[in-house]
Each structure stands twice: as C-alpha cells, then as structure tokens.
C-alpha cells in the first residue's frame, strides 16, 4: 500500500505542467457551448493535439502517448489545475472512443480515431429521444436494412453541442418487431448526410448547447454499424459505464473547483460563518475523498478488477459534490449570486449532473440492485 508516485509519473506530471503553463490561453475562452465559443475551443483542441496531449491514453499511432490510467489521472489533475478550457471533444474521446476500442473493427479504429483525436471529426451523442430520456430502451428511431447499408429515421434530442458537431453516434431500432433492449443497433452517422436536419436550442443557462437531430431516411453504409447488428444495447452500456464513472469526471476537476471555492471564500471572510464555512470545508474534503476513492478504484482497475456497477457511486458522488460546491459559492457571493458569471453558470450546469448520463435515481437503483443485491420486484 503506497500512495506515492514513481519517478516516471512525476516526470510525466512535470512535462504536462510545463506544456500547459506555456500553452493554456491566458484569458478564459468564451463558452464552448455557443457557436462562437465552440470555434475558439476547436483551435485549442488542435493545439492540444499538436502537443500530443489530446488523447494521452491512446496509442501513439492515433495521436496519443500510450499513457497508463495513472498518467491519465495525473494529466487530468494538471489540466484542471492549469485552468485549461473545457473539452468540446469530450463526447467523442471519452464516450465513443472506449466503445470503438472495445467493439470497433480495425478499419473503424484506423479511420475514425485519428480524425477524432485531431478534432477533425466532432462527435455528439444520439441517445435521448423525445419519448426516451432516462428510459433509453423506449427509443423508437429506426434503422431499415437496404442494399449496401441502412436507412435511418427518427428524432434525437438533448444532444449536447449537436449543432456544432460533424458526426453522431447513437442507437436505432434495427428490428421493427423488437421491444425495449432488444433489436437495437449502434450507428455512426455523419451529420452532413442527406436527410439530416439539426436544430440547436438553448439550455437552462441560455447557451445553445443542445440540439434536436431529425433523421429522414438517411442512408449510411454497413460500415456505420458499430459492434454488430442487434448488439446495440450491450455496446451502448459499455459507453454509459465509462460516462458515469471515472472518465467523465476525474478528481482533478473537483480538486480545482474546490480550490477556487476557497479562493472565493478568502475574498468573503465576512460570510464565513454558520453553515457556509463548514460547507466550504465539506466540499474540499469531499473532493479529497473522491480523489482517494478514485485512487483505490484505479488500483483495482490496473490490476484487473473491473469497476462494474460501482461506477454508479462515482456518478452520484461527483454530481452532488458539484452542486454543493456551486451552491456554497453562491452563498458566499450573496446578492451577487444573481449576476450571470462563472459561478452562477456553474451552479446551473451542476444541476444537470444528477440528470445526464443516467439520472441519479437510476444510479441509486443500480447500486441497490447490483451492488447491494436488493430485489428487483417493484419500483
């Protein structure tokens, strides 16, 4: 049992820190969830790629550094510590790519991953539909087999940054007779294909960060299928597992947000009474607890013990920590909390944490049934 980093890991950290210090834009970019801000963030993504920091854990052949999970964690810590921009390529790199590595053909990997790493292809997620939100298995978008490929029709919605992306990955019902989790297929769809219409719409915080994607008899070739026809549910669940767990929200993010919270607290000593001081400390402690939990989890992962349903615990924990952090920041800001700036935006965004990537209600049910073994009867 040892919580110290090796010399190599420390060297990796130093290299990352040096590069980030030299390259992170001095002034924060405009929000990547607006059209203008997205363009600025794309430039940053290409800078990252050129420095070989876009996808550190990927093979060098695809633009990565073959970094271990430990090094990935270190990079994430340094990334947030440096105040580097949000990753607008996140949904491709953290959600689609693990699925491609696990289920993609060699050709799919060789074609798609380098373009994704270089932010040439920009991927958005096509899970939710108007009638299928937390209940993903209720989706009705359909895929009909035709000569040489498939015709896709239906509507996806709440697609993050969909209006700015070039490609969509998502589930479609390929067997019209099927119900629920069966008969689904995972497709990779270019958004410039004929029959695709994308309409951006605003999130709670006003940014046009969502989109509806309408598919009207869109042709895609057979190579657009990921992981085999009819296997969509299994393939997609592998992705949502990584989404809710570690890779979506690494500890570095919360170590940094709670550090900023303490900075804010130091600017408002007159408000550090009552619950507010204890909440500032509590958030800081939870960030450290999350880091330690993650170190234990990664210790298991790198020695071959899969995380499984336990990754639901990560999701519940970080989403609640994020709300606590921002709620406390607003308490520190008092009447200024009504001003639209990074803390109030962050608060609004934090409220989405218990919703996206599977609501926390669903995560709690997963924990209760799959980790604690409680009976599934009833809801």
């Amino acid at each position, binding site marked *: 049992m040892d919580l110290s980093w090796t010399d190599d890991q420390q060297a990796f950290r130093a290299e990352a820190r040096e590069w980030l210090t030299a390259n992170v834009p001095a002034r924060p970019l405009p929000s990547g969830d607006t059209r203008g801000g997205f363009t600025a963030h794309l430039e940053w993504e290409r800078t990252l790629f050129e420095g070989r920091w876009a996808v550190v854990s990927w093979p060098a052949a695809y633009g990565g550094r073959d970094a271990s999970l430990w090094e990935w964690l270190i990079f994430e810590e340094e990334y947030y510590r440096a105040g580097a921009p949000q990753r607008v390529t996140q949904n491709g790199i953290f959600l689609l790519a693990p699925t491609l590595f696990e289920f993609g053909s060699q050709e799919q990997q060789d074609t798609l991953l380098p373009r994704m790493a270089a932010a040439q292809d920009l991927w958005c997620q096509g899970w939710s539909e108007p009638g299928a939100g937390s209940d993903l298995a*209720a989706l009705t978008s359909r895929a009909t087999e035709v000569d040489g490929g498939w015709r896709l029709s239906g509507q996806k919605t709440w697609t993050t940054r969909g209006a700015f992306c070039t490609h969509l990955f998502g589930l479609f019902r390929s067997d019209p007779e099927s119900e629920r989790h069966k008969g689904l297929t995972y497709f990779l769809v270019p958004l410039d294909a004929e029959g695709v219409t994308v309409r951006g719409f605003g999130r*709670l915080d006003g940014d046009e960060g969502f989109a509806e994607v309408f598919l009207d008899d869109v042709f895609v070739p057979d190579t657009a299928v990921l992981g085999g026809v009819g296997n969509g549910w299994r393939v997609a669940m592998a992705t949502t597992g990584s989404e809710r767990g570690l890779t979506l929200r690494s500890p570095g993010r919360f170590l940094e947000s709670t550090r900023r919270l303490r900075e804010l607290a130091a600017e408002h000593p007159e408000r550090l009474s*009552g619950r507010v001081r204890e909440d500032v400390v509590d958030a800081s402690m939870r960030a450290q607890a999350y880091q330690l939990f993650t170190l234990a989890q990664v210790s298991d992962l790198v020695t071959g013990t899969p995380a499984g349903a336990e990754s639901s615990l990560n999701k519940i924990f970080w989403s609640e920590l994020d709300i606590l952090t921002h709620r406390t920041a607003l308490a520190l800001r008092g*009447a200024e*909390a*009504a001003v639209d700036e990074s803390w109030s935006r962050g608060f*609004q965004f934090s409220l989405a944490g218990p*919703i996206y990537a599977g609501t926390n209600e669903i995560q709690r049910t997963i924990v209760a049934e799959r980790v604690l073994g409680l009976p599934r009867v009833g*809801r």
Partner: protein
Amino acid sequence: MDFRLSELQRELASATRDLLDARCPASVVRASREKPDGVADLWSALAELGLPGALVPEDAGGLGLSTTDLLPALQETGRAAVPAPIVETALVAVPLLAAAGNAELVAAVAAGDAVVTVAPAGEPVPWAAAATHVVLLGEHVSLLTRAELRGEPVPAVDGSRPLTVLGGEAGHGETHGEALGTEPALGRSARARAAVGLAAQLVGLAERQLSITVEYVADRRQFGVPVGSFQAVKHHLADALLAVRFARPAVLAAGLALDADPVAADAATARAVALAKATASDAADLVSTTAVQCHGAMGYTDEYDLQLYAKRGWALAAAWGTATEHRAAYGDALGLPRSH
C-alpha cells in the same frame, strides 16, 4: 385568533391572479428578457388594480392597505414572475416617500405613472432601466430619478429581472439626489418590508414550479408508467410541497408583525421577518432543484417555461439577505452567542 385570509386579501389576490393569468403568461416573462425598458402595459394594468399604490392612503389615491393585506396579491405576482419592481415600488418605496412627505411622487405611483426600484447598499439594482425613480437604501436613504442614476448593466441569471451595478453611490454612505432620511428605523423597516415582499413572491414562485412539475410528471411516461408514479419522484415532490406549505404562514405572520411594529424595532419582528425570508427562500430553492431533477433533460431546456420561474426564484432568494444570513439574524435576535 384567526389565521385565515381575510375577504379583502382573498379578493385582491384572486383579482391579481386573474389579471396575471391573462396579461402575464410565461410568454410575456420570456419576451421581457429582450425589453429591459420594462413592461409598461402590464404595469398600467397592475396600477389599475391598485397594486403599486396599495399602501397609499385612500385620500391620496391609493387603496389604504396594510402590508399583510397586500402579501397574498404579491404572492400572485411571484407566481407569475411579474417582470417589474412591484415589491420595490409598493412595499419598499411608498412608505419611505410618504414618510418623507413626497406627496407628488406618491400620487404618481398610485396613478401608475411612476415606477420606483430600490438599490440596497452594495447589491445590484433590479429593473433600473424600467424605473422612473430609484431609492438608494443605505445609511442614507435618498431618491434619484433614473436620469440621475449612474450605473452599468450587468448580465443577470434571470434575464427578466435585469441588473445594474451602481458606481459611486453603491455604499450609500451619503445622500445622492433628494434626501429621504437617515434614521436607522427608516432603512431597517424598509429592508424588512423588502424581505417579506420577496418572501411572498418566492412562495408564489415555488407554487408555480411545483404545479408545472406535478403536471409534467403525471403526464410524462418512462418505463411504461407515468414518471410521477415512481416512489422517488413522489417523495421528492412531497418534500417540496411541505416546504411551500410551511413557508406560507411564516410570510403572513411576518406581515402582521410589521403592521403591528412598522419601524421593526422589536426582536420578535426581526425574528418574524428572518423566518419568512429564510423559509421562503429555502422553499423556492428546494422546489426549483426538485423541479429540474423531476423534469430530467426537459427541465434543463431554455425553451421550457420552468426555468423562467426557477431563475426568478434564485434571484429573489439571493436578494435582501440569503437564507443563511437571515438565520444568523434570527439567532442574534434570540440572543444566541456567535463564536469562532
């Protein structure tokens, strides 16, 4: 002892609700985000009903009501998220202007011709561009016309309640424009009325969000059943209702305390006011968080109306003292020591 609403309270609230159902649906609140100069039509309609001048004596053109009389109607203005400084004008400014003997402006308020917002020391000012006058409420209480006000608009979380940050006047340590007074009781009682008026609006906002959410979860189906049939959703919403139901009487009691002690001199009045604002702020906050969560992604969508009411709730909860600040004040009024 009778804690039911009076006939007058019920009638004024009901007339206000009818008016706002017709004249201030969500679409009007939404559209006001692009109109920082205000909603003159809506203000005129509210003035016809008598709300801005409700506390003005009848012989001066008002309704001659007490604070308590007005609170249920203010709750309705919260429910509708009225995008105008009705609490600031009717409940905060009118008694200050009347005490200072500015009969002209009082009459203009009662006639619907003046819109007065209030700038608390150190806080952003709401609806400054829509107001004809601004009361600066600090150690010194003074009155500026909008033309005299120097300040910069800042982006607001609630776009239907635009904010201005003042420059030199922010601290209110001296008089700017027309002097309204420097007696501590003036500012103390005005702040108390502001807190209670906002508390009434927060209760209305919470009720609105709760009813939107109940309707949504009863209708929306996932996993083959209405979302509202899940135990977790039911229990979240029961807790939200509980918070609202317990806030309502606290707000009315604060109105009665202020009517009995208009200068807010007693510790019991201070406690009643703190209870009202803290409880109503927490209720609105719990309801909005619950509402967003129960809606799933829909609640996180700008095009859906819920967010208009949630954001107004966040703005009002932060104004005139947060829940934590009011709890600290309640503890002080109880004589509870503060320690490191």
